[in-house]
């Protein structure tokens, strides 16, 4: 009976189709004042929807679901803003010029075992990888609007650590991330995968000396 129903339905359905999904998505456009190379605009609940502003600060994010969405504007190392935008299906929501206020400053401090390299560390804030690299002390500064965010640090060969971090503008906060050599055969490879800090040599036992 079910097969019959499906057959009849297929026969009746004919060909072609009508798709409303593009009509339920909109575009968000705006200009970030004084952008830097690190600037980033993120749809908070859908981090895969993000844009890096151009040199003049213009940005555009397409495919944003209609309705109220929260945008994180990470403008610089000190300024950040959270905006709520009403997105219309099929329409472009113009934000105009966004002037982010001073945000909460978060320092992410990454610790690794036995002088292994942190050069390839990947820091993800609210689901988006930030472009900024760790400094020699294994730190990176990020400005965020007040709120709680998932922060994740990953280094090849050493795995990843993720923490939920809450910040409040304009306060400063420092969070330590300690990456340990994982158990198992991969862990014994140590610096053969992650590399060593400058001045250290990777030994056959996987440690940097």
């Amino acid at each position, binding site marked *: 009976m079910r097969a019959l129903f499906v057959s009849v339905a297929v026969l009746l359905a004919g060909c072609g189709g009508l798709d*409303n999904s*593009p*009509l339920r998505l909109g575009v968000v456009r705006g200009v970030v004042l004084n952008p830097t190379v690190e600037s980033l605009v993120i749809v908070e609940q859908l981090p895969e929807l993000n844009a890096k502003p151009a040199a003049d600060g213009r940005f555009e994010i397409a495919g944003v679901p*209609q309705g109220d969405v929260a945008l994180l504007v990470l403008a610089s190392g000190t300024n950040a803003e959270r905006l709520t935008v009403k997105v219309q299906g099929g329409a472009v929501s113009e934000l105009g010029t966004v002037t982010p206020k001073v945000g909460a400053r978060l320092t992410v401090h990454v610790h690794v075992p036995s002088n292994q390299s942190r050069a390839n560390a990947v820091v993800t804030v609210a689901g988006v990888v930030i472009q900024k690299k760790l400094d020699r002390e294994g730190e990176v500064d990020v400005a965020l609007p007040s709120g709680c965010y998932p922060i994740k640090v990953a280094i090849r060969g050493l795995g990843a650590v993720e923490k939920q971090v809450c910040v409040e503008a304009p306060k400063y906060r420092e969070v330590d991330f300690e990456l340990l050599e994982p158990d198992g055969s991969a862990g014994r490879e140590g610096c053969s995968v992650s590399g060593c800090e400058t001045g250290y040599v990777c030994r056959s036992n996987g440690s940097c000396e």
Partner: protein
Amino acid sequence: MTRLLIATACLALSCAHTSLEKGGAVVVSLKKGQADSAFEARRFALVVGIPRAADDRWRALQFAAKDVEDVSRVLRDPLGGRYQNVTTLLTEAQTTKAALLEAVHALAAQATRPDDIVVLYVSAHGTLARDGRGELARYLVTSDADFTHPAQTALSIAELQQAFATVPSKRRVLVLATCHSGGGKSLLTEDVSRELASLKGPMRPLEESSRAAMVLSASDFGEPAREDEGLQNDVYTHFLVEALTGLGDRNGDGAVMATEAHDWARRKTWAFSNGRQRPSAEIIEVGADPIILSGSISREGKPELFSYAQRLDGFALKVDGEERTELPGGAAVTAGRHVVELTKGPDLLVRQEVALEVGQRLDVQELVDRAEPNVAVSLLAGGFAFVDQKSRDEVLPGGANVGASIRFDRLFGSRFALELDGSGFGGGSSLQLGGSAPVPFTWVSGQGGISLAWTWRWRALSFWAGPRVAGLWVQRSFSLPAYSGQQTAFSMMPGAWLGGAVTFASRWEFSLNLQPMLTVLTVDGAMRPMGFVGGWAAAGYKF
């Protein structure tokens, strides 16, 4: 038949044992007349007269008893009706509602063969009253009927017909020598009288159909049926009896059929009453198996032209330029070629030359069907919409459409019509996708369908209903800041076609059509079944 009997008997004898064992064939001596009578259709009649009701506000009928006597006599006559089983009911006890129904059921128990001929004749008062559903219904005033509560105490004609329909015979005729108009053999309660007085125009019988094969009424709905001192009978009954004596044998085949008898009595009653009483007939089945009321078919009859179709009521049937009868009814003609016309006043409905053979019966309705234009080409304008709000919001709001259709009437017989149609339109509209502003777009749609319908015709009106299948093509175009594109879908739709038309100036028609359909469109990647309704008005020309 006799030869068949003899051959069967010989075959049986050749197989039979000569001993006296059980199961052997028995040789019987049978004369030809006996064999014929054994296989002749049996004839049953229940003849009812209700001269007075217990409630004396219904005045006594003078001639109900004589009607019963005359009808039963002519039916029993060995040279006339040849009815072997004639039961008369006349006394107060025999004519109560319950007794009457019991007698009909007893008749049903006797007349069990399909070819039995069964006549139920009633001469009584008739009346009208509101039935249990509040509808005006006809009632037979039985001897125990109460004048103030006829619906509760009298026998409804519908109930009588239902009881009569339980008779297994397929050759039944119910003759109602009653009326329900308030005049003549009827008397109505005051409120029903007032209601009738306020009605204008002719009224038709409420029971449009009956499970009895034929219902012959002494008067049409709203007209009086009368007794007459001079005739000493109910007027219609007098002429019905006259027909059964053999005068009604229109085609001269030796038998008086129910339709022949009714036509005779109807015409005579109409003339006798100067047009005040117009007997009517509700004939459900008339065909090659007629109901013989008197005599038997002893020779092939003259060809007959007839019609009992309501739409031909009042038309004059002319044969070779001479008016033969007014329809409903029939006329016998000589075998050969004749020019047959149907006219009403100066208007000519049909004129055809036909060749008629001995014994042939031609329903002139067929000539009308043949002569009438049977192809209608129409321009149509209407609209369509999905049934559910969600589809109207998310797929396509209702829209207009214009197109053309061609309909072939009487394609597979007189009752069928086939229609092909195509329509389309376009415009701008907007979708309501929930949580956002309306999404504007433009659309174009096209539909093409084929429908097969069963049609009913009454005078200038036609109604039809039947299955339909159509194709629906829809294209939506969007030009939005965030999305531009075209989307197209095509689907087949099964459904129904309902409609009606009025014909005017003989060849023009105006029709209204409705198509409830089911369609399945792929929406957002999933098949979505949807109800779809299209409707249009059309102006057409028939040729």
